[in-house]
C-alpha cells in the first residue's frame, strides 16, 4: 500500500529546490519506500501557512537562508497554525546558532547541503512514522 504525500519546498534558489526534489525522488526510488509525492514550490517565505492550507501539505522542506523573512521565522509562523506539521529545515551550514534555534522552534528535521541520502531518507522515514501514529 503506497501513500501519497504533498511536499512543499521553500527555497529562493530554483536550482536548490530542483536538486532537493531530485534527491528526494532518488531516495524514494532507491529504498523502495512506498511513497508517491506531489511537489509544490515557493521561492519566498511569505504566506507559507496559507500555502500549506491551499495545497493540503503534509511535509515542508524549509530553507533557513531565505531573503526577507528567514526560514526560522517562517517555522514559527507555521507552528502557530499547525503545531503538528512536519517541517524539515534545510541549510547550507549547520552552524550552532541555526541548529539550536531550529530545535528550539520545534523543527522535525535538519538537512545540510550538500545533501546526503541518509539524512534525507531519515526525514522521509520520520514522516512515515509520524503519519502512522496519527
Amino acid at each position: 500500500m503506497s501513500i501519497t504525500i504533498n511536499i512543499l519546498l521553500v527555497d529562493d534558489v530554483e536550482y536548490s529546490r530542483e536538486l532537493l526534489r531530485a534527491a528526494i525522488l532518488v531516495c524514494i526510488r532507491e529504498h523502495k519506500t512506498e511513497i508517491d509525492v506531489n511537489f509544490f514550490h515557493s521561492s519566498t517565505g511569505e504566506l507559507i501557512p496559507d500555502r500549506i492550507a491551499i495545497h493540503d501539505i503534509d511535509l515542508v522542506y524549509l530553507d533557513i537562508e531565505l531573503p526577507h523573512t528567514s526560514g526560522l521565522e517562517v517555522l514559527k509562523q507555521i507552528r502557530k497554525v499547525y503545531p503538528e506539521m512536519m517541517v524539515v529545515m534545510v541549510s547550507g551550514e549547520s552552524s550552532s546558532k541555526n541548529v539550536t534555534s531550529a530545535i528550539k522552534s520545534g523543527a522535525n528535521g535538519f538537512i545540510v547541503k550538500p545533501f546526503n541520502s541518509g539524512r534525507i531518507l531519515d526525514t522521509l522515514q520520520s514522516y512515515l512514522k509520524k503519519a502512522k501514529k496519527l
Partner: protein
Amino acid sequence: MAIVSWQFEIDVLSIDMNEERLEKRYQRERQAREAAESLLEKKSLELFQRNQELEEVKESLEKQILERTREAEKAKSEAWESNQAKSQFLANMSHATMTPLTAIIGFAEVLLQHKVSSEDSIKYLNTIVGSGRHLSTLLGEILDISKIENKNLELQPIRFNLPNLLQDIEQMYLFNCKKERLDFVMVIESDIPEWVVTDPTRLKQVLHNLLNNAIKFTSEGCISVHVNFQPTSNTLLIDVVDTGEGIVEEKQALIFEYFRQADATISSNLGGTGVGLFITKSLVELMGGFVELQSTVGRGSKFSVSIACEDCEGKCSTIKARRVVDSQSVGIPSLVGNILLVEDIEVNRQLITLNLRQTGAKIDTAVNGLEGLQMALSGEYDLILMDIQMPVMDGKEALKSLQQLGISTPIYALTANVISADIQEYIALGFSGVLSKPLELNKLHSVLKQYLRTENHSDAEKAQRSNLFAQDPKIKALFFSELSKQNMEITENIKKLDYAGLTNAAHIIKGSAETFGYDTLTKLASESLLLLRKKQYEQAVQQCTNLNLKLAEVLNEYND
C-alpha cells in the same frame, strides 16, 4: 445580811456565767485548734507525699541522665571507632589506588622520555594496562560499598544460561591459574538447571571475588570449584576450594567485614583492599543466600556460597566438551564505516580514536554535544559514540535533539558511570547501548562489528552509498546545467564587480560540487566565499576568476 447574800448570789451567778462563757470560748477555740491541726496534718502529709514524688522524679531523672550519658558515650565511642575504621579504609584505599597510579604514570613517563626497546615497551604497556584495569576494579568496588552502605544496591535479575556463564568462568580461570602455575578444576553436577533467573553480573562478581582471592592466597596446589543444585529449594550451591595458607579460626568471621583483612599487612603485600569478601557476602545475602567458610591453617580454605534462583528451567545433562583457551589475545576486526566520536576530554578522545582507527574505520570527532549534533546533521555516520557529561550540551541533550530531528544513526553512550540504574536510564532515553569507560576493547569491537561493515564486501556497497545522488543522471544533468549557468553569472559579475552576485554563485557551487567529487571546485568556491565575506575584494575577484576557469574546464570535460 440579806443584801450580802444577794450580793454573794449575784457574785456566784456572775462567776457561773463567766465560767460558762469561758467554757464555750474554750470549746470553740479547741475546736478551731483541732481543725487547724488536722488541716496542718493533712497539708503536711500532702507536702510529704509531694516531696516523696519529687524525690522519685528526681531520682528517675538522674537515672535517665546517667543512662543517656552512658548511651551518648557509647555512641561517641562507636562513632569514633567507625570513623577510625573509615579513616583506615580511606588510607587503605588511597594506598591501593596510588600504587597502580604510580605504575601508570611512572611507566608512561619512561616510555615518553627514554628510548625503550620494543620488547620492553610492550612489557611496560602491559603493566600500564594491567594497573589501569586494577584501578577501575577498585573504583567499582568503592562504588559497590557505598551502595551497600546506603542500602542502594539493587539486583538486576534476568533469565540466563547458567552452564554458559560457568563455562566462561572456567575458561578464564584455566588461563589465570595456569599463569600462576596452579591447577584449576571445575566440577559441574549434571542436574543443574540450564536456565535460571538471578543477577548474572553479580553472580559472576561473586565468583570472581572468591576465585581471585583463592589464587591470591595459594602459592601452590590447586583451586577447585564445585557447582551443585538443590531442586527442592531452587538453590544453587557453589564451593570454591583452595590449597592455600588458610585462615585461623579467630579471624574467620572478621574477613567478611570490610577493611578488615585478617592480616593488616596483607593488604600491602598483596595489593588487596580487603573489601572483596565484604562485597561478596553482601551480594550473596542480597541474592537470598549465605556464605560459609571452613578453613584449616596450612591446608586451605573452602568458601561455600548458596544462591536462591527463580524460574529454573531445563537440565544441562550434556555439558559441552571443555574448551581450552590458549590466549586472551584481542583480535582487531577489519571494518569499514564512519564513526562520530563525541567526547570533551582530549586524552579520552585521542585514546578512543586510536582504538577505533585500528579497525580501519573512519573517525570524526566533536568536543561537545552541540558540535556532535552539528556534525551528525551534515555527515553520514554508521555509529555515534557519545560521552554523557560534556560542557555546552551534554550527551543526553544531544540525543534528545537528534531524536527530535529524526536522525536514525545508532548512538552509544560512553560513560564512566557504571551504575546499572543509569545504564537503564540511558537505554530508556533511546541510546542504542552503553559502553563504559575505560573502554574494554573486546566490547568495543563487538559493538563496532554490529554497526560497521566488514572489509570484504564493502567497497562496492560503499561506493553505491556515497554516490547515490552523483550517479543519478537527472541530478547530474541538473548540476551541470546549473554549473554552466553559474559560469555565465560569475563572468558577468566579475565584469560588473557585483560582489553579492559572486557570493551567491560561489555559495551554490560550494553547496553541491562535493557530491559529484569535484573537490577542487568546492575548495575554490569556499576560498572565494571566505575572501568575499572578509571584503578582500581584489583577492576575491582573483579567486573567483580561478574558480570560473576550473568551472569551464569541468564543463568542457562533461560536454565531451
